[in-house]
């Protein structure tokens, strides 16, 4: 049985965003180190390991830089 997810749990999140982005540029000022998983002409997939506060902060950081979010998936 899966343990229920708590607010404080650290998880790995896979985040899909539109288009190609320069991850080095985003990482320079990012609250979290982003690891690139896959990049193609239309989308970029990266992963982060963090908790709820980290995830919300990262999404806001990306949004402020005009990044368009397509999907978020939590690794079980």
């Amino acid at each position: 049985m899966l343990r229920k997810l708590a607010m404080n749990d650290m998880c790995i999140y896979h985040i899909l965003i539109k288009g190609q982005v320069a991850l080095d540029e985003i990482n320079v000022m990012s609250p979290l180190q982003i690891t690139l998983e896959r990049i193609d002409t239309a989308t970029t997939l990266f992963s982060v390991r963090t908790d709820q506060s980290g995830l919300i902060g990262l999404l806001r950081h990306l949004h402020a830089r005009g990044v368009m979010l397509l999907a978020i998936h939590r690794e079980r």
Partner: protein
Amino acid sequence: MSDLLATKLRRPALAAKRVHRPRLLQRLNDGLDSGRQVTLVSAPAGFGKTTCISDWINALDVPAAWLSLDPADDDPGRFFTYLIAALQQVDTNVGREIEGVLRAGQLPPGEVISTTLLNDLLEWKNRCLVILDDFQVIQDQFILHILEQLVINLPRALHLILITREDPSLPLARLRANNQLTEVRATDLRFTDREADQFLNERLGLSLSRSDIAALEDRTEGWIVGLQLAGLSLHGRTDSTKFIADLSGSHRFILSYLTEEVLNRQSENTQQFLLQTSILERLNGDLCNAVTGRTDSQGLLQQLFKANLFLIPLDDQGQWYRYHQLFADLLRDLHNTLLKDQTVELHRRASHWYVKAGLVREAIEHALAATDYATAVHLIEDHAMDLLMQWHIKTVNGWLQAIPAEWCQYSPRANLAFAWLHLMRGAYDQAAPYLQRLYALFSDPQTSEETTDPVLTAKWLAIQTMLLNAQGNPAQSVALGNRALELAPENDGRVRSLIYLGLAGAYQQLDDYARAVDAFQMIIQYGRTATNSVSELLGSSGLALLAIQHGQLHLAYDLASHGIERVERSGSLPPISTAVYGELGVIHYQWHQLEQAHRYFRRAIQVSALSGYSDAELFYGVILSRLFQIEGNLEAAARELQKAVDLMQVVAPAAVREEVIAQQVRLYLAQHRLAAAETLLTGHGFSFQDPFSFPDLQTGQPNVRSVAVLYLSALRILLYRAKARRELTNVKPGIDLADQLIAGALHHHYLLFALEALLVRTQLHATLGNEQASLTDCAQAVELAEPEGFISVFIEEGPPLAATLAALLKHDRLGAVQRSYVEKILVAFSRSQPPEAAHDELAAPPQPTVPEGSMAELIEPLTDRELDVLRLMAEGLKYAEIAKGLFISVNTVRSHVKVIYGKLGVKNRTQAIEQARRWQLL
């Protein structure tokens, strides 16, 4: 400091009986001891973040600057005002300069804020903590960008602690990678079983079994607020185990469920108080009495605090409190369900209380929440100027946006407030729709009763006078200004000084010296009665500048020095003080007191950079260049001038642009770069080929100084040609032009300009061998200059003029002028270093030090990329084609072209290509 601000800077008090958390304190201590510079405490609400840090700091013997942030602090002016106030709790000298500028209503450029703060903080030798609590409210990119710079460059002594519900958009990954970040997150903050036991049984006085505690800890996930609410709900219950077993669901659900449980256990009286006061961000007894109509609020607040009902004390006196944010949110939800019909009235009462307490921001926010737009607009209109002067633009804009458009449409007050909001920032485009609406409202008084209000009409007319001045229509501006004066009450100093400001500008444009002086004096007078030091300084500065232009150096000195003395005493640093420091620099410069002049110019430029007021930085940079030039330091003169030229790419007010060109001409001639000097003026319609020609000069046209300065520069070129190349054919037309300039300047009492022109004509006569005429001009200049003690205006002309002055003495042509005055000028000549490149041009025509017809003509050479752009321009490519060819954007091409034109001293592509070919750049 207001009581409310003090509550933001105070570290939250700790409960006497609290859970000790040595594992967290140890982690925080380890981070500090290992030299990490930032601590991030990031977890959702209710995890005890603030208490944890407050507890830690309480145990440390380290000075700490604490700032509790509110959503309204996400406004740059407000944020940095509070941040500096917090830092000054540790060291009163930090951020003094920026504080002065902020107080005066300006927001310095971002890099100036970060550099100045960092420089101040570098002075800290002992370790100090800076804590920003509730940092998640800060989302403004300007603020975050400056904090980013601070975080990257934090001085060693400073340790920054960010308490936040979400990770901020700052380079934390970089800090983490460099082992510079200590993190405390939700997983660290959640209570362990042991801590939960201590909290519930020891602190809240329950008697729960170990298994009940473990179950409760599991249900709430160690979430402290959840545990606290559960503990309060369990008081006096006999079915604890069942109650805990039944508890399930999300944090939000548990919170909502438990809050209702807790509330239901309070008396009806207390429940009513909690729900009614939930509309307040902060609470004190008097405010709660006003809102609820009770008389016992202070006692009730103290009882609630003792009962652990999520009330947080904000001061040491037990006066101000706030509810824990989560509890407040839940109370407001309940309020909206149960007391909805009271909400408007409660906000209205809160607004009235805040008005009486003089706390305008809170009063406006409650008036808006009460949908009492009439009161809100009244308050905004009365206070918007003051708030805008404190650079709370985002806050004021937010209020105005909260007023429904249909309501705003017919309100002259709201439109006036909007118009001022945009005009204050120089955003004329954005002000236009409100101005148009004001035109419509005031031209048809039937649309609103308010348009018959004389004070409102006067304010509207005051705005129009300024717009007319900007459009170059001073006569109509004067007419409207005088009408406004008839309407504005005598005791409304703020409105009357605004009207006189418009009038002073109009009279200056009309060259009506006497009326301009009167208007400036009225600004000073009304500024004093309205205790508005900025208005007063505006008046003093305007008068001082007029006095300098009219040669009244002593009067200018009195005005400027008294003005600056008052500003320095007040601790504020309005942008206009840049002008006053600069005026003092000009006065000392003219008196040839060069050390003092240097000091004031440095100060003017420093204040200008702080306030982002580049016009002044540019103007005084030019005069500083002149100062270096008469000191013989042509390199420093060129450096200062180049700074001004660079600034011209950003701001280029017309009058200042001509001053820059005039100094470029002076400097080029001192460097014997005649072609470069001529190029600057040929672009303005002057031709130095035989015969000399120049644009039509209308004698007596307004603003002689700014318009005629280029003509005087042209005369300097003729003089150079006559001296260095013995080209005398154009000297006579030059003397004729000088006659017109001098007559115009004397007619308008522009003494300083008249002196410069007289001294150039003195030398033009000398080149023709007309010694008598030369001596006559020089004698007239000395006679005009003596009463106010001008000296540098003579030194600027170089050694040949010393010879003429000596001849005046020799031939006893001084008239009523004291001999000692001329001797003083000659002593100044002997002490001044002749520019290294400027020897006696009459005796020995100099060889150019820089080869003509090469890139060396440029003060700053073109970069490789600019040369690439220039070559493609010469091939006839369009901007888009150049951009494509060089893999850059069209905007980048445009900025390169702008810089190229500036460096080549040309105005268009054809001129640029011609110039580039002439200088063999292509």
